[in-house]
């Protein structure tokens, strides 16, 4: 069980090394890194501020991890999500899943991201040349999560 919400950046290599320590049964590591784009919905993004709901955020991420574990036989799941002000190319989120074989790691990693996007209480506000604006939730994210609810 490892969920972290932090302002600091993270080192993907170091996190994966730590996760694999004393885990000789692990044969697969799947990782997803979300980063800040410099363009969203046709407008340039100069910077972004990530707000969250302290307390609920951690609970929501732990619930998502728990759900993933009840579905796939995985060794470790790590979720790190940054908050505060971020610039284009900055890393926002890291999900790492380790397992015996790759199928479980790939699937659980995507599952965690799809649920994080729709259930973890984070909100992005972008600063563009036109001013600042809250990012709208995307229907595609709801659809991505729904796939997992159809007994896939």
């Amino acid at each position, binding site marked *: 069980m490892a969920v972290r919400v932090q302002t600091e950046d993270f080192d993907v290599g170091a996190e994966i090394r730590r996760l694999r320590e004393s885990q000789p049964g692990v044969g697969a590591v799947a990782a997803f890194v979300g980063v800040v784009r410099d363009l969203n919905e046709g407008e340039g993004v100069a910077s972004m501020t*990530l707000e969250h709901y302290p307390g609920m955020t951690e609970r929501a991420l732990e619930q998502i991890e728990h759900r993933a574990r009840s579905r796939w036989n995985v060794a470790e799941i790590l979720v790190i999500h940054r908050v505060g002000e971020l610039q284009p190319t900055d890393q926002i989120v890291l999900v790492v899943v380790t397992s015996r074989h790759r199928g479980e790691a790939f699937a659980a990693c995507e599952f965690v991201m799809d649920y994080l996007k729709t259930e973890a209480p984070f909100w992005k506000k972008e600063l563009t040349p036109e001013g600042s604006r809250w990012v709208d939730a995307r229907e595609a994210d709801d659809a991505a999560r729904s796939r997992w609810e159809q007994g896939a």
Partner: protein
Amino acid sequence: MNLQVLYFAALRERVGRASERVDVPAGVATVGELRAWLVARGEPWASAFAETLRLRAAVDQAMARDDTALAEGAEVAFFPPVTGG
């Protein structure tokens, strides 16, 4: 019944505050009833809630629905759809 109400993101900006403590009358027993009671207080709540599409809520830090029941001292949060990741 005393409740702690929290607002996040665009809704927080529209209401003009991040939290408030409210003492609601009998008859306000669910999330939906609390929202209606806040809106009935007038501005800024009326416009803030009207302008926030697909409003979501949480009770004691778990996602909730309009019919979720409230208990004395509950923490109730209102916010727009989440956009992390």
